[in-house]
C-alpha cells in the first residue's frame, strides 16, 4: 500500500504548515517546521520505495534487484542533517529573542516594521 505512505507524508507536511501559519509561539512554529521537514523526508523515501523489497544494504541474498532505490535514502540522510542544523540554529536564535524581548509571542516581537 504505497498510497498510505504518500498520504501520511502529505498530512505531515500540511500539519507542519498549519502549525507554522497559525501558532503564535515561536517554539511551536519551529516544531511545525520540524514536522514539515519530517513529512518531506517521508515523501522522498516513499518515492524510492518498491513494494516487497528490502533496505539497500548489500548483503547475502540481497542484490540490486531485491533492494529499494538507494538514492532517495541518501538524500534523506542529507536532508535530516540539514534539518538538525536549521533547528539548532533556530532554537539558539529563539533563546536570544527570549532574552531580549522576554516573550516568545510573535505578535509582541515587532520592533522591525514598515
Amino acid at each position, binding site marked *: 500500500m504505497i498510497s498510505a505512505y504518500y498520504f501520511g507524508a502529505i498530512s505531515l507536511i500540511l500539519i507542519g504548515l498549519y502549525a507554522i501559519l497559525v501558532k503564535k509561539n515561536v517554539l511551536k512554529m519551529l516544531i511545525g517546521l520540524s514536522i514539515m521537514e519530517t513529512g518531506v523526508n517521508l515523501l*522522498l523515501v516513499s518515492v524510492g520505495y518498491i513494494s516487497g523489497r528490502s533496505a539497500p544494504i548489500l548483503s547475502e541474498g540481497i542484490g540490486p534487484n531485491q533492494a529499494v532505490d538507494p538514492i532517495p535514502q541518501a538524500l534523506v540522510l542529507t536532508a535530516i542533517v540539514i534539518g538538525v542544523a536549521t533547528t539548532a540554529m533556530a532554537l539558539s536564535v529563539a533563546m536570544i529573542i527570549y532574552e531580549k524581548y522576554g516573550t516568545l509571542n510573535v505578535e509582541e516581537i515587532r520592533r522591525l516594521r514598515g
Partner: protein
Amino acid sequence: MNGQYASLLIALPLISAFFVPLIKGLGKKAVKYYLVLITALQTGIAAWVFQEVYTTGKPIIVMAGAWRPPVGINLYIGHFAALFVLIVAVVSFLMAVFSIRAISVDPIDKYAMLFLLVMLGATGMIATGDIFNLFVFMEITAISAYALTAYNKTGEAAEASIKYIILGGIGSSFFLIGIALIYGSLGTLNMAQIAQLAGGMDATVAQVGLALIVFGLAVEAELFPLNAWAPDAYQAAPHPITAMFSAFVVKAGLYALARILYLMQAVSSWHSVLKLLIIMATLTVFVAEFAALRQKNVKRMIAYSSIAQIGLIGLAFALGTQSGVDAGVFHMVNHAIVKALLFLAVGHVAVSLGGAEMEKFEGLGKRMPLTAFAITVGAIAAVGIPLFNVFWSKLRILLATLGAGYSWAAAVVLIASVVEAVYYFRLIHTMWFAGEGERISEGLAVSLMLLFLAALVIVIGVYPDYAWSIAQKAGNDIFNVADYIKNVPLMGVGA
C-alpha cells in the same frame, strides 16, 4: 592548466573556514587579514576560470572523483557561472576589506567562518550541475546567512533572523518536495539529464513540481510574497553582510530559479509556470518600490530598492525569450555593482556616524564628500539615468517585456521607476542641501573601493558594449539548453 583545478573554487573557502580557529590564536586582527587573504586568493582563481572560459568559449566541467555524470556529481562552469563566480569573489574581497573597519562585535572568528561559508554556498549554487547538490549549497548559504543576520546579537537581529529561518525553512521544504516529484518521474538528479528527459514528463506533475521549486527558491530570490524577511534581515545584518546578500546571495537564488526553469522548457505546461513568475515578479517591483518610499532608515530604503530591482530581474527571466534572459543577466551584473556600492557607502556612513537613519545623512556632502559622491552615483544609476550602467539593462528589460507582449508589466515597472526616482532624489537632496557639519576622515581603503565601484558604474554606463557582449554570452548559457546538455558528458545509463 587543467580545468579540474576549478574545483578549488569550492574547496578553498571550505578548507579555509576550518582553519579559522587556528588563526584565531594569532589575535583578532589576524582573523580579519586572513579573511582578506583568502578572498583575494578566491578572486585570483575565479579570474583565471573566467579568463579560461571566455577565451576557449567552452565550459569547464569538473567531475567529482572522476565519476562521469549522472553517476558522479559534476560542476558546470559555463559562461554564466564563470562570470558570477568572479562577481561573488570580488564582492567578497571588497567586503572582507570593509569588515576590518566595520566589524567590532565578537566573536570575530565565527564571523570569518560564516563569511567564507556564505561565499562557498553562493559559488556552489552557481557552479553545480546537480539539482540535489544545489539544494545542499542553498542550505549552506541559508544557514550561514541566518547566523550572520543574528550576528549583532541585538533583539532586532534575532527577530530578523527568526523570520528568515521560518520562511527559509518553508522554502527549502517546498524545494525538496519539487525535487522529489522530479526525481520520482524522471529518475535522475543531474541537471543535464533532467533537461534531456523533461519532454516526456507528465504535464501536471511537471507543473506542480516546477511551481513548488519556484515557490521554494522565491524565498532566497526575494520574490513577493515570500520576501517579508528581506528588509528586516538587510537592516539588522552587519553592513558588509548586507552588501553580500544584495550583491550575490539573492542572485544565486535567482540564477537557480532561472536555470531550473529553462532546463524544463520542454515540458508542455511550462508557460503557465512562467505566467505565475511574471505576476510574482511584477508585484515584487510594485510593492517594494512603494514600501521604500516611506522608509526613515536609509539602509532599509535601499534594501527595498534592491528587492524591487530583483523583481525586475525575475520579470526578465520569466519572459521566456532570449532577449529577456540576456537583459536579466546584464541587469544582475549592473545591480551587483550598484548595490555593492550603495550598501558599502551607507554601511560606511553608519559605522562612522553611528546609524543609518535619514537624519544622519543631513550635511553628508560636507562631512564625508567622497562617500556622499559615491551614494549619489549609485542612486542616480539605480534610478536609471542615461550614461549610468543600470539605464542600459533597464531599457533592455523593458524592450524585452514589450517584445514578449506584456505591456501591462512594462507599464507597472515604469510607474515603479518614477517612485524610485522620488525617494533616491530625496536622499540626494538630504545629503547635499540640508544640514551642516565638520569634515571627518573617510578612511583610505573604503574610499578606494568606493571610487573603484563608482568608476565601474560610469565606465559600463558610457561604454556598455563590452559588458553587454559578456552578458549575452552568459544569457545564452542559461537559455540555450541544447548546448548545456551537449556539454555535459553524460554516461549512457537510464536515458
